[in-house]
């Protein structure tokens, strides 16, 4: 029996790194400090696994699966590589090299979670800090369209609502917590102020707040379902905070015109820095979605939505993003890495995925593997393989390998390396 | 050798004109009444730079179809000795007389290719908006770009174009109508001014276009820069030794013409003279000059008329 301490949880963007995992005979038997989902991840990581590569549903060996994949990708005119955010940085790095090599389009799941955040960062910027700053300093925390009680289960205890820190010795008592959402949640019951707003009206509300912070008188009696006097109080509270933070989630990015919503929120925080210290942090979902954007930025210059068809990287969300490419029926082959677009894309984008040669590298059976021509099983990074992941706030943490994967099961990065080598051969070394 | 037109003697002399900077602006308003009021107000007390800050006059009325905003308007021209002495009165006069006048707007009347320089008139006026002025851009990247300033005022909004063309122009074109009575010369003068106003590019800055008191430089009084033009005063023609008033002449009026170029001034003079000589009782037409000391242009009367 072996106990691994300071294990990093490879589920959500929190990347909690204080887990204790007990392993016996190469099996995980106990976890400590895990949240419910993390527990499920560690304890069930062997359930529903893909155990061997398949081509057209037929069991095969890794070499053949790689060769077949290489043939498809090397000959495709408009190949798409998608996924990336639930794998380690080394694999992301390889994926981009592969995209470069085959002149394909590469996109990560960021495009359907915090793509609008990136678009905003590019138009007006972003005012962020690491999570420790929140823990140590924040006395006003606003959760806007984000709900850690369902998606980032230890966020409240480790980083935001409850922890004590250098300048927050009394933890929860030192903080005023606000939640803004379109429905009641577990979070909304434990905050100091809950604003239940109308769906798709975040922009208007944030704009009004910005105007109020600037001292402008708003004529309307209520905005987005919230009375003006409550907004005025909130604005005052924001200006008087010692250190404020907005944690926003998909409530902003996935509503109508997500990029403008985030834009407004970042603008508000930017304005507030004329009065006090204020930061804003996106609640990134997958454990390494931040890493996908980070690695992609240093290699290609762009965080997501990249097209290598001209030999160098080009960027245009809406043109080179996965959903759009599929919706326009442009892609003629797809490689999916650690993601399940068939389950998570809107139906008409999925439809095109069913019509092109689909290659999937994943650990478990999912809807995409069930529809793929080629399926290659992979080791679970953070459990069966090590590698780098970036926390939601951009802090890189090394994931640990705590057990051996099954025989013949390789991590994503090695599978991709084999694929790259094979395609190089097919392309005559070019 | 003197020329005679319609039996009226045209003296073989020249009007001595000089160079000034001129500009043209179009004032439009809700109707021509208010356009005229603004124009009159703006061109008031602008007869001669001897005592005024500039010379200005109404060129003509402008039809709805000609103006940028489709409203009736008036074309006004202003003259100053330099760019600066033109710009200043323009700013002041637009500010005091047009900006204040209900419903008016002001546009440039001298396009970029006609002008030697573009003056930042609207750009200067805009400060009146105290920070609430709005820049209006039109036609960028499509055709010649247009810039305006919109200034909030009590009535609503004042609109002025940003730049106004200015060019080296000609001032001081003139001729004298000599006749047998004040009634005659007034009638001839009115006819002449009417004819002159049909010529584009010229104005007659004096009241109604007519000037009854010509002046000469200096005076017997040391404090006075200019005094009455003794050579042409009929009532002293026989006691003032160097009087140039012919025997059969008992009243004289002068018409002074400023124009955007020499050609327009010449044409205007010719049209004016031709109209004047039609009136019975007009005896002679002559022009004022200072033997070439004043200006660089010598407009010979017979040349003018030859051009008709």
């Amino acid at each position: 029996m072996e106990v691994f301490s300071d294990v990093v949880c490879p589920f959500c963007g929190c990347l909690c790194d204080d887990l204790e995992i007990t392993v016996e005979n190469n099996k995980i038997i106990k976890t400590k400090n895990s949240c419910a989902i993390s527990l499920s991840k560690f304890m069930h990581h062997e359930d529903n696994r893909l155990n061997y590569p398949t081509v057209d549903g037929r069991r095969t060996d890794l070499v053949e699966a790689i060769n077949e994949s290489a043939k498809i990708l090397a000959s495709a005119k408009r190949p798409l590589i998608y996924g990336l955010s639930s794998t380690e940085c080394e694999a992301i790095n390889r994926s981009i090299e592969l995209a470069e090599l085959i002149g394909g389009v590469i996109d990560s799941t960021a495009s359907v979670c915090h793509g609008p955040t990136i678009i905003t960062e590019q138009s007006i910027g972003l005012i962020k800090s690491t999570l420790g700053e929140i823990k140590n300093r924040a006395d006003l925390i606003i959760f806007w369209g984000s709900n850690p009680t369902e998606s980032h289960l230890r966020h409240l205890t480790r980083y935001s609502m409850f922890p004590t820190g250098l300048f927050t010795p009394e933890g929860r008592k030192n903080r005023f917590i606000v939640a803004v959402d379109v429905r009641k949640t577990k979070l909304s019951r434990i905050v100091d102020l809950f604003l239940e707003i109308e769906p798709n009206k975040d922009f208007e509300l944030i704009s009004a707040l910005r105007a109020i912070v600037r001292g402008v008188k708003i004529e309307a009696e209520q905005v987005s379902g919230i009375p003006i006097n409550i907004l005025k109080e909130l604005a005052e509270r924001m200006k008087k905070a010692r250190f404020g933070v907005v944690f926003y989630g998909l409530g902003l990015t996935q509503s109508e015109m997500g990029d403008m919503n985030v834009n407004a929120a970042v603008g508000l925080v930017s304005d507030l820095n004329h009065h006090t210290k204020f930061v804003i942090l996106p609640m990134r979902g997958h454990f390494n979605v931040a890493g996908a954007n980070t690695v992609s930025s240093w290699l290609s210059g762009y965080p997501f939505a990249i097209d290598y068809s001209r030999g160098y990287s080009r960027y245009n969300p809406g043109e080179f993003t996965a959903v759009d490419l599929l919706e326009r029926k442009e892609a003629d082959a797809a490689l999916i890495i650690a993601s399940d677009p068939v389950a998570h894309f809107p139906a008409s984008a999925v439809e095109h995925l069913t019509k092109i040669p689909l290659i999937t590298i994943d650990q478990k059976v999912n809807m995409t593997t069930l529809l793929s021509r080629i399926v290659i099983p992979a080791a679970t990074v953070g459990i069966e393989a090590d590698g780098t992941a970036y926390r939601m706030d951009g802090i890189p943490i090394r994931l640990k390998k705590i057990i051996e994967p099954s025989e013949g099961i390789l991590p994503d990065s090695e599978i991709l390396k084999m694929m790259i080598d094979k395609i190089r051969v097919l392309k005559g070394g070019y | 050798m003197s020329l005679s037109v319609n039996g009226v003697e045209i003296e073989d002399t020249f009007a001595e004109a000089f160079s000034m900077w001129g500009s043209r602006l179009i004032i439009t308003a809700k109707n021509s009444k208010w356009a005229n009021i603004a124009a009159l107000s703006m061109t008031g007390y602008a007869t001669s730079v001897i005592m005024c800050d500039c010379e200005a006059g109404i060129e003509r009325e402008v039809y709805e179809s000609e103006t940028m905003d489709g409203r009736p308007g008036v074309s006004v021209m202003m003259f100053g000795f330099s760019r600066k002495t033109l710009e200043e009165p323009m700013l002041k006069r637009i500010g005091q007389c047009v900006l204040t006048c209900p419903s008016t707007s002001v546009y440039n009347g001298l396009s970029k290719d006609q002008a030697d320089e573009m003056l930042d008139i609207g750009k200067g006026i805009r400060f009146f908006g105290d920070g609430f002025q709005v820049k209006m851009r039109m036609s960028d990247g499509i055709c010649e770009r247009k810039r305006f300033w919109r200034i909030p005022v009590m009535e609503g909004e004042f609109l002025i174009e940003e730049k106004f063309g200015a060019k080296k122009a000609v001032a001081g074109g003139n001729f004298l109508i000599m006749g047998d009575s004040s009634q005659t010369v007034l009638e001839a003068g009115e006819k002449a001014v009417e004819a002159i106003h049909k010529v584009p590019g010229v104005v007659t800055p004096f009241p109604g276009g007519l000037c009854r008191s010509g002046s000469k430089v200096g005076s017997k009084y040391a404090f006075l820069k200019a005094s009455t033009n003794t050579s042409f005063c009929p009532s002293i023609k026989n006691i003032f030794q160097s009087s140039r008033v012919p025997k059969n002449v008992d009243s004289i009026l002068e018409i002074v013409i400023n124009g955007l170029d020499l050609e327009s001034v010449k044409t205007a003079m010719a049209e004016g003279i031709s109209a004047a000589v039609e009136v019975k009782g007009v005896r002679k037409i002559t022009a004022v000059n200072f033997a070439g000391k004043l200006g660089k242009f010598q407009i010979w009367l017979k040349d003018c008329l030859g051009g008709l």
Partner: protein
Amino acid sequence: MNEVVVTLISARTIEQGIGLEIGKTSEQYQNSVSVIELNPSDFESLEISEGETVEVESDYGSVLVKCRSSQDVPKGRAFMPYGPWANKLFSSSTRCSGMPQLKGIKVRVKAAKGLKMPSIVELIDELRRL
């Protein structure tokens, strides 16, 4: 037949997260995401009982899921966890952002007594037939 028009919000839930980590084909996952929650008043107007199948239809597609009532959901709104069922209702148009709108779309919910909700395998088969 009774019908309500509501604004649909989709989001993550703990059960969905737990189910996901067990596996997409697991019972837990399927149970956790094939559901729509309505405000009790909207729920009552459908005249169905807790857990009964409803048909949810948007401008882009329709799907059969089970229906529950929830005080947390305001009147006129509905909630579904992320997953293949909810995704049948959304448009693939991203309006040049890469991000399809997954929250705040209008849907019609009507009772579908007796109709059977598709399983994940059936959803796959449906796709295979395309």
